Structure formats: structure tokens, C-alpha cells
């Protein structure tokens, strides 16, 4: 079986070495990268590993709200080591206030525990009242990305830009995600949250105790193995009925995945002309509709551009991009099986952002996904549907295991966490974007790359 997040044991020999009794001091002495054992989500686990310090630079509008979240364990002892530092910078408009923010961050980061979280909430630069405010808000972007690179021991720093229309509760799912162990490999990212509207926001109320995807129907393409299987597994863990979809030739692994998570196996080649109709018919007939589609299916057919033939180009574009366009069109058509509050989440790639040698076809398809997501998001908003993408960086899968040693080691180390991510890291990010409470997050591309230097 392929590695699927929780189940797999990492083959990262260097991380083991650097965490050992001999390798630990040695790597420290030599100034080598020191990848930490990242804290990852387990059901029942506290939101953060340690108390949360919520600070405000200027006149923030979200700090008080964050403190009302039941999972946020507020700091009581003044010198306690921190599980997370939340800085409400929504009122940040001047360079002086930026300097205050810098001080708060500096003192907080010093107290951060391993795998701690730095989360800054700010206004969007476009909605700033004046030019100085816009510049100040944008300055946070560089500040946070740099902080993320300076953090050690698996800690991460991310920035959330909150639009003026967004209600405080619209930020809840994002704040929770970025503070939790679910965002282990999301680092140095900027996420925008707008008004959730009919797409759904706020905290789950009546069923506060039940997992976020309880009762929802989720389709995950390409879920026989690897990242897709991990995505299916996380949705099932979070209460969803998961339709595991893959090409018929992957049927054996697909059935195993579906049975492991208690989901449904659907063998379907999404590039066939009637695929969209067959999928619509299936979810309507069997499940009465669908709430989330995760476009994860993807293939690579690497070749330098000069040697790229039609077959390689066409097959990659057909699976990675055209099928998504066709399925989305069908799912968003009138009488759509995708219900209000629905979610479309695509799996892009840092290759689509940064490009990659030998991957003109793959990178084109993955960049195309980003274009699709941005264009589709405002159109789908009227139906209460959000459209987002995740862009994984170096994720430990069967594919990376097959890489040459040098390429694999370079891929693992050239990010702020000095290690590859696990499929479950991508899965958790997808599941957050698809949460009922994430309606304010749309048109976003969130990298799951440990702040890789590629495509930064």
C-alpha cells in the first residue's frame, strides 16, 4: 500500500539522524538543517501545544473574538512558553504601529514552544484607508514570511488578510486550522478571508461536538493511493461520506482505500466525454447530491520541451486540467448536484507556481488550475460555493521515493521546515478549505510546502 499520511513511517533518514543522540549535537555544531518531528493532528488533541498569547497592535477588531473560541487556551502565567502567538494587526495603519507589531512578535517568538504557531491577522492592503496604511499592511507580508524562515523546531508563521466585510466568525475555521497541528506543513502563507455569505461561515453551533464534515458527501478524484487516499481518509475521519474515485486500472488499490475508510469506490476515467454526466448521475442517484469535490487526480509525463510530444502533453493536460474544467462546468450547471455551501478544491502544485525543468506540461496544467480557481471563485460565489486550490511542495509519496537520491534530498531540505511534507498535510489543508465554516475563503491558492524556496 502507498503511504497515506498517518499510517506511513517516514523514510527521512536525515531527520532521524538530526533528532538522535549523536546526530543532534553534531548537526547543531556544524550548523546543518535540523528538521523537527512535526506535531500532527490526532483526534481529541488540544488545538495548540501550550497556551495562546493573543496580542493587538493598534486597534484590532479580532483579538477579543479569537479569545472567545473555546479551543483557545489563553495565557495565564506571564512567562509561560507559548503554543501560539496570535497578533491582531487588523488596525495596523502606520509604520509606528508596524514597529509595535514587530516588538510583540519578537518577544512572543522567543517564548514559542516547538511546533508553535505565529498567526497574524491583518486587513487587506487594497481596503486600506490611505497609501501609508496599504504599505503597512503589505509590509506585514514580508515581515511574516521572514519570521517563518527564522522560526525553528517545526514552528510556523502565517498571515491572514481579513476583508472589511468579513464578520469575525468568518475567520474561525481559518484561525483554528492555522493554529492547529493540521497545518503542520503550511508555513509562510498568506490567506485571505472575506465575508462568508451564503457559502457558510462561523462556528458549528448545535453540533459543536461532531466532526466538521459530518453528514457531507465528498468526492475525491485520484484517491486510490498517495495524497488522494490521505485526503479521503481525513474527510472520512471528519465525518463525511467519501466517494473514492480513480481510473478503473487503479481499482484494486481504490477498493482497499474505500474499505479502509468506510467509503465508496467509484471507478471512472474522468477524461472520458461522459465522465461528468456519469459522476453527476452517480452522486445524485446514490447520495442525493454532493457537498465537496476534490480535484486531486493528476499525472506526470516528464520530458524536456524540445522532446515533448503530443501524447505526453495531451494526456497531462487532459487529466490535470481539462477534466477539472469539464467536471466543474457540470457540477455548477443549473440543477447542479453540488449543493449550496458546496466546495471545489483543486490540487495544484508548486511546480505550477515556480515551474520545473522537464515539466512544461505538468506545470502548465497546474498553473492552469490556479487560473481556473481565481476565475471560477467569483462566478460560483452566487451559488454559495467556494473554489480554492492547494499547491503541495515536496510531499513524501511513492513518487518521491522513486526520485534519485540527490533530487530527493534537495527537495526535502530547501524549505523552512527542512523536511518533506506528508500526504496528510495536504489532506488537512484541503479539508479545512472544504469545511462548512470556510465560506469566506475562496479563490485562494494555499501552498503546502513548508515555505519552500521554490515558487516562494
Amino acid at each position, binding site marked *: 500500500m502507498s503511504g497515506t499520511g498517518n499510517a506511513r513511517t517516514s523514510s527521512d533518514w536525515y531527520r532521524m539522524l538530526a533528532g538522535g543522540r549523536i546526530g543532534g549535537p553534531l548537526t547543531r555544531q556544524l550548523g546543518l538543517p535540523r528538521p523537527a518531528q512535526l506535531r500532527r493532528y490526532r483526534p481529541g488533541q488540544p488545538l495548540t501545544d501550550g497556551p495562546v498569547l493573543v496580542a493587538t497592535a493598534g486597534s484590532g477588531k479580532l483579538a477579543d473574538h479569537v479569545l472567545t473560541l473555546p479551543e483557545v487556551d489563553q495565557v495565564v502565567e506571564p512567562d509561560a512558553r507559548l503554543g501560539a502567538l496570535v497578533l491582531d494587526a487588523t488596525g495596523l495603519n502606520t509604520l509606528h504601529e508596524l514597529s509595535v507589531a514587530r516588538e510583540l512578535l519578537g518577544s512572543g517568538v522567543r517564548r514559542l514552544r516547538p511546533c508553535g504557531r505565529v498567526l497574524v491577522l491583518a486587513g487587506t492592503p487594497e481596503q486600506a484607508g490611505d497609501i501609508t496604511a496599504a504599505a503597512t499592511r503589505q509590509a506585514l507580508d514580508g515581515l511574516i514570511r521572514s519570521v517563518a524562515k527564522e522560526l525553528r523546531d517545526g514552528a510556523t508563521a502565517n498571515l491572514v488578510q481579513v476583508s472589511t466585510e468579513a464578520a469575525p466568525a468568518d475567520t474561525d475555521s481559518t484561525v483554528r486550522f492555522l493554529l492547529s497541528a493540521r497545518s503542520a506543513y503550511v508555513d509562510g502563507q498568506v490567506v485571505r478571508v472575506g465575508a462568508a455569505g451564503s457559502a457558510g461561515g462561523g462556528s458549528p453551533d448545535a453540533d459543536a461536538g461532531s466532526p466538521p464534515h459530518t453528514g457531507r458527501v465528498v468526492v475525491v478524484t485520484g484517491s486510490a493511493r498517495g495524497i488522494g487516499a490521505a485526503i479521503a481518509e481525513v474527510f472520512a475521519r471528519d465525518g463525511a*461520506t467519501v466517494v*473514492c474515485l480513480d481510473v*478503473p*486500472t*487503479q*481499482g*484494486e488499490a*481504490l*477498493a*482497499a482505500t*474505500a*474499505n479502509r475508510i*468506510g*467509503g*465508496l*469506490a*467509484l*471507478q*471512472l*476515467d474522468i477524461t*472520458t466525454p*461522459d465522465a461528468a454526466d*456519469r459522476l453527476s448521475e452517480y452522486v445524485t*442517484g*446514490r*447520495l*442525493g447530491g454532493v457537498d465537496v469535490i476534490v480535484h486531486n487526480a493528476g499525472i506526470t509525463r516528464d520530458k524536456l520541451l524540445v522532446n515533448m510530444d503530443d501524447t505526453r502533453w495531451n494526456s497531462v493536460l487532459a487529466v490535470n486540467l481539462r477534466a477539472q474544467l469539464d467536471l466543474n462546468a457540470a457540477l455548477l450547471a443549473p440543477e447542479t448536484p453540488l449543493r449550496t455551501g458546496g466546495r471545489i478544491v483543486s490540487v495544484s502544485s508548486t511546480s505550477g507556481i515556480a515551474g520545473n525543468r522537464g515539466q512544461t506540461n505538468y506545470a502548465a496544467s497546474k498553473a492552469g488550475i490556479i487560473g481556473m480557481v481565481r476565475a471560477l471563485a467569483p462566478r460560483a460565489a452566487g451559488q454559495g460555493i467556494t473554489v480554492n486550490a492547494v499547491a503541495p511542495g515536496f510531499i513524501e509519496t511513492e513518487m518521491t521515493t522513486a526520485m534519485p537520491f540527490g533530487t530527493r534530498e534537495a527537495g526535502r531540505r530547501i524549505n523552512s521546515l527542512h523536511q518533506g511534507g506528508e500526504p496528510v498535510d495536504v489532506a488537512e489543508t484541503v479539508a479545512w478549505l472544504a469545511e462548512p465554516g470556510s465560506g469566506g475563503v475562496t479563490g485562494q491558492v494555499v501552498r503546502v510546502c513548508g515555505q519552500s524556496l521554490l515558487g516562494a
Partner: protein
Amino acid sequence: MADRSRRAESRRAAVIGGNRIPFGRAGGHYAKASNQDMLTVALDGLVARFGLRDERLGEVAGGAVLKHSRDRDLTRESVLGSRLSPATPAYDVQQACGTGLETAVLVANKIALGQIESGIAAGVDSVSDAPVSLNDELRRVLMELNHARSLGDRLAALAKLRPGQIVPDLPRNAEPRTGLSMGEHAAITAAEWEIGRAEQDELAVASHRNLAAAYDRGFFDDLVTPYLGLSRDATLRPDASVEAMAKLKPVFGGTEGTMTAGNSTPLSDGASAVLLGSDEWARERGLPVLAHLVDAETAAVDYVHGGEGLLMAPAYAVPRLLARQGLTLRDFDFYEIHEAFASTVLATLAAWEDKGFCTERLGLDAPLGPIDRTRLNVVGSSLAAGHPFAATGGRIVATLAKQLAEKGSGRGLISICAAGGQGVVAILEAA
């Protein structure tokens, strides 16, 4: 009439769907897979397709024709190894190549009677992992040794050991009562009915072409789950041609024979499973109803002394079933006649068109008549897919049910011949 009305009141079992592994060539992909491995994986594929994990079903009926002595309660053991609830009862059935369809009839009947709400009919066979038994003489010696009480008795038993006893008993594809292989029997019938070589080859080519086309249009996407690297039936030849078929040498019926490796089913390994249930059970779970199993009939013929062909029993079963249902042979949209040999299908069709056979042997007033050949095995059958004996019935039931669901109306006839001079036939109707 009383019988009729009682039948009308009872409900019909729904065919919800099926799953099989691609059928493998003997000694091929599944050479190291046991019957239990294959049956378990076929059940698990069905579980994945219909979300049946941890579900307690009414029962699972399954079977195999070639069974190891260790495969006692093979089906129950497979259920225990599957993702179904271990509280699902199971039992084995064995009726040669009729096994698979017979399990469907058994489960469907219990559903129709209201004894169970759901069940799986399954079958599996492996000629690659066939039971090779201990030499019978050696077995007797060992049994005697086991029962010996004194040292003297034990030594006396051991003294009966002979080098020749090391030769094992191999399973033979021969009828115990005639010593003839099934192919040799079929060749006799083919000669009797003057079934020509060319028409057999044409039927075989059509089977390959139809099966390949069905795979290409995704027809089997929700009927087959790949296994051990095989995603389509190993014996399928999409490029089969009459010209190539014509070059093959006869393998049955001597040098003048018409039956070749091309128009006879290959020995195969595989497993199939069909999910059956009441309409209510299916509706409660959002599961589709593809078709209903209307009725079934089993017949047997005396091929030992009675002068009838070994594989001709379906020719007797079908008219009895038609009479009970008030139907004629032309009242079907699909005919699924198991292709044990091309000549078997053709001899059966010829018999139904033959006045003498229909009046003298079947006791009818007139021949049943011809069928519309464009409705015969339209998505291929055993000549192309292969024929793991007990798995064929499940393959055909699920395949026919899906054809009826695609058409949205109509009726289909299943006819399966079996060793021992038996035949199992059934009628499905679109839901």
C-alpha cells in the same frame, strides 16, 4: 392458477450490482492466488462499490467447482476475511458450472420469500491452484496407520508403503461416468447437430469483439475490479479475426473435429459476486435496482445412457421456464447463453429451431424457433472473458442486469450448461 396468484404476491429479488475480478488465464496472473483469496477480494470489491463495510447481510451463498479439502466452508471463511460484518452467515454450493447462477437463485428465492432482505451470490474457481490429492493407496495406508493401536499394527501399516504411491491424484477435466472430457462430449454433440467450424469461429470472434467494445466504452467500470495487476480478462483478444481463428487445429473430435482452442473456453481463474436485495433494502441505502430476478429453472439430462448431449440440459430447462412464465423464446431483449464452447451455444439454438427435437424430446407442439442473434451475448461471454467455472454465473447475472438497466426496460434470458448433464437458466427483467 392458484400457484400463479401466489407467485404474483411474492416480491422479486432485486439485482443491485456485481463485482468480479478480471478472469485470468490458467497459470497466469492468479497462479499464486487461492480460491479463498479471489473470493475474498471479489466480496471486498463489492463492499467498496456499495459501501457495505461492517454490514450484516442476510447471507452469502458461494461455491467453487475445484475445491481443496482445506476449503471446507470456503464462502464463510471468505466472508470472515472480508470487510463484511462477521455476523453475515454463509454457505457453500456446488453444481458444476451452474454453481454461480444457482447461488443467485438461492439467495433471490430467500429474498422473494421474505426470509432475508439482502444477500450476495458468489462463485470462484482456480485451475492454477487446483487440488492435487494424495495418491489414493498412500492415503489408505496413512489412514490405517492413524487407526493402528499397537506397534505391530503400525509396522504392518508402514510395510504397505510403496514407491509408486508418491504419484499424486490430479484433478481431471473428465466426466466420472464416461471418462470423456467435456470437450469430447461437446464434440459429439457438435457432430450430431452438424455445427460447422466457420459458425463456431464467428461466434468466438463476436464474443471477443463485443467484450472488447464493452470494456472500451466503460461498461465494466462498475462490474470489474482489477486484481494483481490484471485489469481486463487475460484471454480477451480485441483483434480476434475469423481468419486467424480458421488457422487453429482442432483439439476435440479428432482430426475432422470443428472445435479448436479458439472456439472453446480457455481454462481460467477468477471470482464473481452479485449483490441482491429487496427493493426496500436497496432504497433505504440509496442503492440502484438494475433488474429483478423473475424465475429460474434447473434441468438435468441422461448423457450416460439416455443419448442426450452432456451440455444440452439448458435446452430442456428453458422451455419449462417459458411455459411457467407464459413467454415465448422471442420475448427477450437479451440472451446470455454461456459459451462453454461455441458449438454448445449453436447446438442449443439449433435444437430450439428443430421440429423433431422440440416435439419428440421436449414434448412441444412446435419448435421454440430462432432468436434474434443480434441480442445474443452482446457484451461478450465466456469465450472471450474466460470461464472460471463457478464464477461465470455471477458474471452473467451482473452483466445482464446492467444491460437491462442501460436499456431501461425489457427482459433477459440466462442459460448455463454444467457438467453432470445439468443446466441452470433464469429470467431477469429490467427494474
